[in-house]
């Protein structure tokens, strides 16, 4: 589904990713862990097409196509979903409108008609229960005045409705208390399926107690320096990042 080969990318003029390789198959859940400044968020930004980054070398293939060649909205319509580390507040645009506009963009991209209003409402109400959110959130401006936990839940709600093929979770656990973390994790787990992959970026092992990954990778200084199964996360937690950084050197 996703193949990243020898990816080098700069943020502005600063090289951040320095030869990253990663392959994700359908249905797999990959966790990327790493110390601050390793390039975790840069990876999610480059994959989703955020402006401000330059890919200097390497390539990213998504479903057989060059992902980096696509505009951000096309990537999203093709099924790449980024759950933001810092979801943006959009005053004046209601949550439900954004959900509907996003879903219809995907349907149009797929050559389908716009979603029926009643079907849409049923779908949204069904998914919002899953995230244990109040219906009033639908009619509030996107993320405006939401707490940290509400924003993260809202990101997962969007994913639940848009049904992406590749879901990138950028530090979705940061800033969450344990109850909010459990709700978010349940939401993510309910989305797991054979044709949907996840790339979870996190600094802490805690999230992986609730969402068990198939693979864990350690990112340090712009490269994956170690890969393994879920047990790697525990080992990291116990030994600290210096352990892998030391190994890489």
């Amino acid at each position, binding site marked *: 589904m996703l193949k990243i080969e020898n990816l080098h990318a700069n943020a502005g003029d600063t090289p951040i990713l320095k030869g990253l390789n990663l392959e994700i198959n359908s249905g797999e859940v990959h966790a990327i862990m790493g110390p601050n400044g390793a390039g975790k968020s840069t990876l999610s930004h480059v994959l989703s*097409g955020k402006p401000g980054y330059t890919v200097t070398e390497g390539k990213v293939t998504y479903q057989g196509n060059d992902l980096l060649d696509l505009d951000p*909205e096309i990537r*999203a319509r093709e099924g790449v979903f980024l759950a933001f580390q810092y979801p943006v507040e*959009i005053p004046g*645009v209601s949550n439900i409108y954004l959900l509907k506009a996003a879903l219809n963009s995907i349907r149009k991209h797929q050559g389908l008609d716009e979603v029926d209003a009643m079907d849409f409402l049923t779908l949204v109400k069904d998914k919002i229960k899953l995230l244990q959110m109040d219906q009033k959130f639908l009619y509030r401006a996107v993320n405006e005045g939401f707490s940290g936990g509400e924003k993260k839940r809202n990101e997962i709600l969007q994913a639940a409705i848009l049904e992406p093929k590749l879901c990138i979770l950028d530090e979705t656990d940061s800033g969450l208390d344990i109850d909010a973390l459990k709700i978010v994790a349940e939401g993510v787990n309910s989305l797991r399926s054979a044709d949907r992959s996840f790339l979870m970026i996190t600094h802490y092992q805690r999230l992986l107690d609730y969402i068990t990954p198939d693979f864990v990778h350690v990112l340090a200084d712009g490269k994956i320096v170690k890969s393994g199964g879920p047990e790697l996360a525990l080992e990291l937690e116990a030994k600290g990042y210096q352990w892998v950084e030391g190994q890489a050197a």
Partner: protein
Amino acid sequence: MTSHYIAEYEKTADLLPGQSIAWLKALRADALTHFSENGFPSLREEEWRYTNVSAIEKKLFLPQLTAQTAETDDAFFNDYRLEGALTVVLINGRYSKQHSSLEGLDEDISVLSMTDALAQNPDLIEQYLSKAVSIEEHSFVAFNAAWFSDGLFIHIPAKKVVDKPIQLLHVVTQGDCLSTIRNILVVDEMAEVNVIETFVGVDNAYLTASVTEVFVAQNACLTLHKMQIEGDKAYHFGGTYVKQARNARFNHHNFAFGGLLARNDMHTDLDTASECDLNGLYLGIKRQHIDNHTRINHLKPHAISRELYKGVLNQRSRGVFQGMVYVAEDAQKTDSAMNNRNLLLSNDAEADTKPQLEIYADDVKCAHGVTVGQLEEKSIFYLQARCIDEETARNMLTFAFANEMVDKVKLDGLREKLLEQLLKRFPQVSVDKAWL
């Protein structure tokens, strides 16, 4: 500089309402003296430094002192009548009874033309006229006091909750016209009312110089809306001066969309524990110049003021915001927040913003913030990451920025009219109305 206006005044002074009332005659004379001595405001005055009114000075706009509204074609302003409201129409600065619709007005509420109010009860008018703003405020106020040809007097008695909004529809039907209006709104204790001031006019140049004095008594609540959609070449001066008594509440929704050059003054004096909420939206296109001047005077303790003015400026337009929050020594526990946010849509558009705080009390909470900028890239990217293309994202964000102010209006009919005007001014904003 002003002699041509003064010469005109002398010719028509006898036709102004209330000339037989001694105190009013004296007031008008003082005002004229003030105006002739000071002339129109100049860029040298701090409060006019961004707004050049010399074009008004060079022209001569003439008042219409004889009512000649019978043949007025009302088709062009009928669209602006608010459904379900009591509507009072002023044409070219004169009350037009035949165009007004006051059916269903409760008997204890007074809605009178200023001419009639002065004729019927000059002593009552004396209690209010020139009491919320003095002729020394600046020359347009003096000009207005000297020359007002009519206006409205509204009195809501104590404890009356008026269910229908009252609309003042100011219409200018002729080019070169001078429409000088003085309105007085009195909302007595515990009364509540919604009032809408709508300004519309022809496409030729004309001048509106309107002053509205507002008195909100103890525990009363007034929500005043101003929908300024003057013609493209119009000059507009509109001042609203408010006195709020103890616990009085005043909400203002100020939409400045029209005119070539528009200046809006919004001042309020807050007594103990009173509250004001000032909202403004100014939209500039082409070469429009829109100046907003607000002043909130916290004179007594525990009052709360909230202010948010937003500007969307396109093409070569220019928006000005000068906001003053004054806190007197006695006004402890003042809670005030002032914000001005400007969105520039073109490289040639300009926003000048100057928030000011003058605080003489020591136990107060006064916040202020200003932004001038373009759409935020992170917001555009967020929408793109949610499948929306960049152009649509920009349109959505622009519209949403402005619509936030329209959305605050609680009168459904008015909100729809505002929305129409908003979309008309930004046709590139292809917003799906279905979700609104």
